[in-house]
């Protein structure tokens, strides 16, 4: 009873069983990830239902263009990831490596743009939590620019409080998402190295498939985050 297939772990009877078990396992893991984000979406729903003004004001400070570019970049990365899985299944070694590489590049660009966005917020004091000390002129200017300026200083203070809550939620949701992108980049780099060394082909492509599933979820979560945070009218 020898393992002639080096990719078959000894507790599985056949490669097909190994693939089925792994695939189901990754899907169940994705479900747990959705539950992990669920409390944040729930908090969003609660605050948005009770205090719609928070979100209206808040979105004025987000750069929808950058957000849209990021959305396109992640969608592109999902495409290249799916293409990588396809290439692995067909044994197309060079295509596989190239696609994983482009996926990593897209992810890094996404993180770069997020860094730009975050640093813009930092500059104007729109940071989460107790250090929330926004540049008042900037705030007033932004609100006026969109035709929703504050009439009195009490109103401005109330709306600043709202802004603080909004940015708490914004940084929590996009921050947790970015953390998952960073973790994804780490895993993708590992996958890249293994693919470069020729570990994957038509006979064995499980890790490419499973990492692909994870990456699609990361993309999907951003696709929900973008309109909920950036595109409110």
């Amino acid at each position, binding site marked *: 009873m020898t393992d002639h297939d080096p990719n078959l772990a000894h*507790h599985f009877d056949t490669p097909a069983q190994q693939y089925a078990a792994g695939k189901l396992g990754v899907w*169940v*893991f994705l*479900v747990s990830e959705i539950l992990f984000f*669920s*409390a944040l979406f729930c908090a969003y729903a*609660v605050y948005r239902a009770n205090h719609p003004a928070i979100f209206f004001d808040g979105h004025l400070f987000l750069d929808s263009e950058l957000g849209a570019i990021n959305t396109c970049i992640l969608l592109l990365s999902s495409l290249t990831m799916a293409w990588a899985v396809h290439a692995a299944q067909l044994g197309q070694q060079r295509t596989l490596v190239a696609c994983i590489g482009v996926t990593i590049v897209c992810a890094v660009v996404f993180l770069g743009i997020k860094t730009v966005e975050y640093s813009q917020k930092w500059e104007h004091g729109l940071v989460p*939590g107790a250090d929330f000390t926004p540049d008042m002129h900037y705030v007033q200017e932004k609100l006026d620019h969109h035709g929703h300026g504050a009439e009195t200083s009490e109103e401005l203070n109330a709306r600043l409080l*709202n802004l603080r809550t909004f940015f708490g939620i914004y940084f*929590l949701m996009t921050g947790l998402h970015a953390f998952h992108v960073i973790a994804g980049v780490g895993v993708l780099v590992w996958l890249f190295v293994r693919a470069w060394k020729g570990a994957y082909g038509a006979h064995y492509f499980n890790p490419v498939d499973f990492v692909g599933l994870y990456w699609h979820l990361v993309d999907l979560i951003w696709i929900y985050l973008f309109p909920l945070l950036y595109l409110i009218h």
Partner: protein
Amino acid sequence: MVFGAVFFVIVLATGGLDTGWTFYTPFSTTTTSRVTAAAAGAFVLGFSSIFTGINFVATVHTMRPPGMTWHRMPLFIWALYATAIIQVLATPVLGITLVLLAVERLFHIGIFDPTIGGDPILFQHFFWFYSHPAVYIMILPAMGIISELISVFSRKHIFGYTFIAYSSIAIAVFGFLVWGHHMFTSGQSILVSMIFSALTFSVSIPSAIKVFNWLATMYRGSIWLATPMCYALIFIFLFGIGGLTGLFLGALATNVHLHDTYFVVSHFHYVMFGGTLIAFLGGLHYWWPKMTGRMYSEFWGRISALLLFIAFNLTFFPQFVLGTQGMPRRYYDYEALLERNPQFEFDHQLSTIGTYLLIVAFVIMLVYLLHSLWAGRRAPANPWGAATLEWQCTSPPPHDNFASAPTVGDPYDFSHLRYDPETQGYIIDANRQPTDEAPHPDAGRAEA
């Protein structure tokens, strides 16, 4: 798991945690005790729960042996499957709740802080959304063990296999719908409380279905009071009391008086200790021969079980009384409380004596189990005459468990097993007739 435990050791070594395991805000977001470290530890431990759940779901779906259809799985596996589903769905919510707590402490984001528009009750909702299903994670495997024990030690096919199997799934589903019953006095609306109360009553039904099926299994069975069976019977009694007292707590009017009293403490000890731990002990004694290859002393096993039963009731029944009389839980100044309420003292003393007896019972158990490891009789492959697959290999099992794939049949069909007095175990005898020898060592006569 070790990594998570390290966090908790750090917590203990640097001043401890004073919020209680429930971490309620706003105290937990403002106290100086080691909340963030404890939350980090619990977060890490949560991963072990989630990955176990993922593992079991994938295993049950894709790695059953040939011939084991879903309805030929042992009920213990059904119970573990339902538990795995809860672990996967509920634990991440605890994860994010702990992250939010830590983030609030470290960065003052303000989600739970009312002074900046947050809501401390939101924390309770997030926390209990996990923590109620968590108790079903704790009880479902225990119930699975009881299903195995009752059938084997009644020498009778489990009654209502399908009902028991699907009741585990029902408990998993319904368990997600009742978290608000921990929050009846939190200020949530009456309507919401009424809905949670109704759902809480309905979640007791699948558990009751199991108890009735176990009793029906025992009816006209040949009862073998081996130590595992003693624990199974103790379970039914203690879990019965625990479950029924849950109904007192689930009813809104009585909950107002019983919330945060010793009644709650006693209720959950009856279900968690009298339920989960007793079932664990039953399983320990059941699988001990399989795991270690040794038999322990039946005499001392039964003595210990009896003593445990008496001691447990002595410890926890008085706490129901204390709770109805108003004794609060987590009380800081016990002496002052007793000075003002001398009527509480007697029941507390009964409870304390009960704990001393519990210690004696556990010490006896430790001694005879350890003793069995070097001086116990060598265990046969199947000492209890069970029909599940683990009894088809030697005790303890060899490295690969089975030299070749085992034959899968009905896990509760004992008709082909015959007691062999020489090996003091059961062997497969396809030609066994109903009028052969006594079905088990305790039986006075052969089966009719």
